[in-house]
């Protein structure tokens, strides 16, 4: 089991962090998705190709590296289809497709993955997808469909015919969703929609993003507690604040340990992955929201304002917590895996 980052992983982290600090600082995040930043992220850093196999032009890295990248995009609240594309790329590892994977690796294609089952009939797909992650920004949608009784994974060009996309106002102001209606949209079957490990990997990827969100939120309130004065003392010197921050730090330490473990399991120990993935969502999703919530509250009144960034973290944390369904589902799955 490997819970500590390697030298290479640390360098990847530093590179992504440095890039985002200048290319996508928080004031810019409020302006929403910037395709240029996204293109540079994939071009200069090759992030979209991180987990694409080398034969398709990717870096052939594993979940451990993807987790490092997602932690940083999470901490930066990066808008746009990075997580959605990572989800799609994870699904494609089970149903390889040269065109899509090459496109993703080169940063030409932003993709997304949805679990709503489509109807598929002779090369076209139909169905209504209520909330597609980054559905407005993605070029290609992957979703399961039933063909002759078997579940297959199909790809649909979202700018193609038969597709209606409606951008949705979301709680999370930094990343969008769209309603997508397919009415006989051209669709391509990629292969059987084996569930093996895809959902688990999504859970781990999301937990990595959540780890980043909670780390950035904790950093922000710790920094503020060192400069904000009340009653003649820095607020961080009051045990009422200090002890809460210590508890938040404890959650962060445990969340990081779980994310590293789950990512390692995805790469190296597939037998452990299902349990590790359910554990990751069961723990990290909750911890992330609790830390984001308390970081907002500890800011005092300023944290309640639109102008302050605290609510951006709070809302991302809440949106992430329910992104893969009500959290009790992850707990129930964990219970099954533990044979309880």
């Amino acid at each position, binding site marked *: 089991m490997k819970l500590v980052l390697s030298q290479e992983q640390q360098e990847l982290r530093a590179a992504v962090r440095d890039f985002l600090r200048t290319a996508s600082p928080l004031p810019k995040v409020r302006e929403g998705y910037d395709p240029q930043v996204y293109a540079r992220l994939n071009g200069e850093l090759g992030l979209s190709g991180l987990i694409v196999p080398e034969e398709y032009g990717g870096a052939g890295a594993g979940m451990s590296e993807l987790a490092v990248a997602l932690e940083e995009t999470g901490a930066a609240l990066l808008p746009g289809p990075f997580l959605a594309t990572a989800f799609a790329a994870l699904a494609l590892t089970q149903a390889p497709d040269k065109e899509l994977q090459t496109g993703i690796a080169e940063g030409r294609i932003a993709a997304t993955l949805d679990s709503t089952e489509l109807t598929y009939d002779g090369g076209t797909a139909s169905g209504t997808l*209520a*909330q597609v992650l980054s559905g407005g920004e993605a070029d290609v949608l992957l979703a399961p469909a039933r063909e002759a009784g078997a579940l297959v994974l199909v790809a649909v060009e979202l700018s193609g015919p038969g597709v209606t996309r409606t951008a*949705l*106002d*979301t*709680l*999370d102001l930094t990343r969008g*969703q769209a309603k997508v209606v397919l009415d006989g949209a051209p669709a391509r079957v990629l292969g059987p929609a084996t569930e093996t490990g895809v959902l688990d990997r999504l859970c781990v990827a999301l937990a990595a993003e959540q780890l980043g969100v909670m780390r950035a939120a904790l950093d922000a309130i710790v920094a*503020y507690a*060192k*400069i*904000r*004065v*009340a*009653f*003649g*003392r820095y607020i961080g010197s*009051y045990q*009422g*604040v200090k002890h809460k921050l210590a508890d938040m730090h404890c959650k962060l330490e445990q969340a990081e340990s779980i994310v590293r473990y789950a990512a390692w399991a995805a790469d190296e120990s597939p037998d452990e992955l299902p349990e590790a993935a359910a554990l990751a969502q069961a723990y990290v999703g909750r911890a992330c*929201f609790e830390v984001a*919530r308390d970081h*907002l*509250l500890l800011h*005092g*009144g*300023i*944290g*309640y*304002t*639109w*102008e*302050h960034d*605290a*609510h951006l973290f*709070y*809302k991302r944390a*809440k*949106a992430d*917590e*329910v*992104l893969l*369904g*009500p*959290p*009790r589902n992850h*707990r*129930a799955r964990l219970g099954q895996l533990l044979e309880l």
Partner: protein
Amino acid sequence: MNLADYRRAAGDWLRENAPTDDYPEADGIARAKEFMAKLYDAGYSGITWPKQWGGQGLTQAEDRVFAEEARDYTLPTYIFSIGLGMTGPTIVDRGSDAQRERFVRPLLRGEEVWCQLFSEPGAGSDVASLQTRAVRDGDDWIVNGQKVWTSVAHHADWGLLLARTDVDVPKHKGLTMFVIDMHHPGVTVRPLKDMSGRANFNEIFFDNVTIPDEHRVGEVNDGWSVAVTTLLHERLSISAGVGMGGQKDHPASLEALRQALDTSDPLVRDELVELHVRSRALALFNQRLAQETRAGIFPGARGSAAKLLLAELTLYQADLATRLVGPEAALADHPLARAISMAPGMALGGGTNEIMRNIVGDRVLGLPPEPRVDKTVPFKDLKVGTQA
């Protein structure tokens, strides 16, 4: 009139006069002022306030009865709430007779709207560290500075302003209270959006605003003791509102969630049981406080416990509901998305949870105070606001 008769009369009047449309505020300020005048003329504005200055001179009992009868209506009195709950009582308690004569009746009749100007960006929980300056200039004072978290300021005619008049003494000892004319050209009101995107507050900027000395409330440099009166009334009016209806329509209430969710899932059911337990626990505590008040036992700082619990319940409830409902709760126009966006407000307005715990610890349990470093230093040497 005995209480039963009073209740009947109040009920009758409300049935006849209370607006019944869903959003009585929609028609705006004019309609609210019109209603307030009717309320005043019927004798239901300022029920416990002294007769001499325009009130009804009745007791808490009548006030409580009217509030109970009014619970089923949404009266368009929101813009008057600061005046009625905080600044008005302060003028009654601490103003000069001339000020009472001038300000109280128009306030009770809804002719003039009030706001309260205490908090500043650098002085939230620690209001007494505020930096807005008032400098004497003959018979006037000249005010410069900035306030924040000001409700209804964009409609306000008058503001109750706490300003620093002496920086050479410790922070509590150099403050003075004023009534400021919100229409003065040096006053700028800028709406401040909260995290849900709504502009429920304002920032106020003062640029050489003149206040005549006759609008000073209390003695020079004795403003903190006046402010304590105001804050006491604020706490009372918050705790009076606590637990009074309003929960049934909440999208995170048990009733709403029972409809929205599959309660055949035992885990969902158990979460709803927990929601019920916490809601009932607080509601019963509030009812007990109300019964004690009626019996003449003043809740005092125990009201801060109720406020703290309400803040926690509000957040817990919205958080739980979004978790139970799942992804669709993260769509901006879902009622629960609004609920989770507004939920922190209860913990951040009217004193943070930390301040409430201090109050309960110090004043209810009588615990020893935190050592204070800020009570003796001259204000000009004190660290305040946000700084490294």
